[in-house]
């Protein structure tokens, strides 16, 4: 089935490339380059042709009334020059109110218009391919396809198109568009000193990358801060991932141990923790561990569990990892017990006959099997922990600010991960969207490298069809 679709798709697609259509196409097809749907209309495909024409009209109107202005602005070299305000009109001898530019809207609407152009080009190419297909069909003595036949193709050989249209519209509007926009922000000076409409921002090239990665003279270079945050992000991700994993595995093994009764009860004790939404447990833990919290009251101590600044804020860091163990172990417990049951009994049998001790069996059979099966899971967990906003933000809020140098204006704090730093930079009273955007790109690069390397090394990607 799969092969057949592939073959038909290729047979129809390759000869209909746009440039071929231009070279070998009939005059009607060439006219379709300018007037969409012409080739279809002239061959009697009325509905299809009309749809194309409508689309072209709509797009043209959109560009004239809206998009064109912003795209022109986008490529004019600056993101607006005219501030709103009052301008002296010489002729009328009065001050006139002028609606100024807004860099933010220029950039946002510019990006929206660019995406609209890309989408339009896709439809445009489809229009030409369709017309050229008609040329070939007529040349071969076939008749052009009716609208009904087109629809039938759409739900059979090209069923992926109706399936993917809606989800991808959502993705484009709520993921791709905002992402392109924020990536572009990394190349501007959009911060608290350049907030439209009061002040405009503009392109600054790679200046923000320089700010983040260089050490030049304290106030401007964040390199030191960046390295600290990056280092802690990795340390945190490492501990958060592996403590959860191994503790979950150990608890799962304990529960599954032969001769232990009430297995369901033990499992439930841990799994109850999953029931309460994470942010609730985190807020609760934060209140329990607070300076005035119940833990200090019970112990009769006065320890700042989440705010002690000594030794590079060591105590808060440890507490965060401990709380994360409490939150994460139930999940890994569930997953590990599922996989442990799948380990073939022969492996254990063989090991026991060889006289291996339980510890030996764990290291020679259980652990290798688990690691082999769960490597993809571990990687996604690691990447997930690099981006684990909730735990840090709700427990310490990124703080405390210890007395180590944090770079003037970097706004980073001791337990900040890259993500929480990014978040603070965008929600602070003095936001620095530009630097936040660069940090976002850095996070992306780290996650992408980690995921792609492992994704391609696991067998999951190579043998995706092995069970079919």
């Amino acid at each position, binding site marked *: 089935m799969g092969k057949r679709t592939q073959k038909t798709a290729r047979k129809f697609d390759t000869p209909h490339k746009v440039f071929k259509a231009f070279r070998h196409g009939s005059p009607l097809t060439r006219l379709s380059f300018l007037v969409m749907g012409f080739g279809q209309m002239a061959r009697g495909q009325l509905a299809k042709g009309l749809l194309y024409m409508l689309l072209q009209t709509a797009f043209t109107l959109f560009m004239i009334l809206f998009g064109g202005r912003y795209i022109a602005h986008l490529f004019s070299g600056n993101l607006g020059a005219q501030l709103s305000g009052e301008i002296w009109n010489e002729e009328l001898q009065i001050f006139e109110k002028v609606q100024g530019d807004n860099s933010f809207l220029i950039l946002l609407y510019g990006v929206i218009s660019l995406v609209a152009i890309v989408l339009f080009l896709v439809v445009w190419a489809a229009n030409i391919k369709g017309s050229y297909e008609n040329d070939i069909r007529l040349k071969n003595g076939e008749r052009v396809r009716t609208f009904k036949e087109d629809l039938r193709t759409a739900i059979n050989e090209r069923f992926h198109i109706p399936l993917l249209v809606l989800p991808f519209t959502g993705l484009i509007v709520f993921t791709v568009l905002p992402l392109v926009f924020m990536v572009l922000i990394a190349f501007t000076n959009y911060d608290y000193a350049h907030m439209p409409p009061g002040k405009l921002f503009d392109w600054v090239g790679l200046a923000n990358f320089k700010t983040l990665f260089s050490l030049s003279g304290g106030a401007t270079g964040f390199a030191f801060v960046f390295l600290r945050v990056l280092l802690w992000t990795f340390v945190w991700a490492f501990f958060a991932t592996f403590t959860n994993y191994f503790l979950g595995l150990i608890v799962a093994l304990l529960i599954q141990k032969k001769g232990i009764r009430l297995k369901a009860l033990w499992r439930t004790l841990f799994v109850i923790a999953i029931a309460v*939404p994470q942010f609730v447990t985190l807020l609760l833990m934060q209140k329990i561990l607070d300076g005035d919290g119940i833990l200090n009251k019970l112990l009769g101590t006065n320890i700042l569990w989440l705010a002690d600044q000594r030794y590079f804020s060591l105590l808060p860091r440890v507490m965060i990892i401990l709380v994360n163990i409490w939150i994460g172990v139930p999940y890994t417990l569930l*997953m590990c017990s599922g996989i442990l049951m799948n380990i073939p009994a022969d492996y254990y049998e063989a090991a026991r006959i060889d006289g291996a001790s339980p510890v030996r069996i764990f290291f020679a059979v259980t652990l290798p099997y688990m690691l082999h099966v769960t490597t993809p899971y571990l990687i996604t967990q690691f990447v997930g922990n690099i981006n684990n906003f909730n735990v840090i933000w709700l427990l310490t809020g990124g703080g405390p600010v210890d007395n180590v140098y944090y770079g003037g204006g970097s706004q980073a704090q001791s337990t900040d991960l890259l993500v929480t730093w990014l978040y603070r930079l965008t929600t602070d009273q003095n936001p620095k969207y530009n630097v936040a955007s660069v940090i976002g790109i850095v996070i992306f690069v780290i996650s992408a490298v980690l995921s792609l390397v492992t994704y391609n090394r696991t067998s999951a990607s190579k043998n995706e069809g092995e069970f079919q």
Partner: protein
Amino acid sequence: MTKTLRTLRKNAANALTYALLATLGVLWVLPIAYLVYTAFRVTPSTGIINSLFPSDLQMGFSNFSRLFSDTMFLRWLGNTLLVSVCSCALTTLFILMVSYALSRLRFKLRKPIMNVLLVLGMFPGFMSMIAVYFILKAMGLTNSLLALILVYSGSGALSYYICKGFFDTIPRAMEEAAILDGASQPIVFWKIILPLAKPIIVYTVLTSFISPWCDFIFVNTIISDRNLYTVSLGLYKMINAEKNSFNDNFTVFCAGAFVVGAIIVTLFMSMQRYYVEGVTSGAVKG
């Protein structure tokens, strides 16, 4: 002799295991117990208490009556329910469609699309939050529940992996037979693949239903009208809005958390079998 020694050792090991499990179990249950205990604690009603069982301790349901009468909790509950039902329906639909297309169909752009989705998923979600906010503003949708539904389900297709993993394991022979009998692709999708995919559908429905109950960052950016809060943002604001709100509202907060927890537990308990099946069938495959 050796036999008794062995049973002795076995018993000791078991006792040790029991002790360890009991200690850990208590550690894991304690915070939850504290939450439940506080939810039912009438006096002292402040967040600050000096001992676990103060002398003026009184238990009762007044936190719950305060929760439903003094705060807008009931309304927030309704909002959350509406948002999660709608976004869960949309997300599940999107995920099923994308998974089916990428798993069962073969077309030219399949691999590139999978790579693009992989890459898109790697950007931290709230890097683009401000841009999302302004796009919604341009659409005139800020401060509406529709905006939340769109945002939650709009990027839903990105988490299609587990579902696709499941579809990958369904034998091709099933649909080939149907196609030989003249079934069209939508029929194959609807009548053959979907019924087989029940565990993964339940899993997808559950996970996408839960997420609006737990997110408060996006709600915080998009919604500023108290009437439109979801429970998570409402609870968060209850103890974080002002300096004294923690002391005033902590017991009520715990009552609210208890209600939300109870809803989620009921949901999971009734669907547990499918949930575990879903996780183990699609997720972990080395």
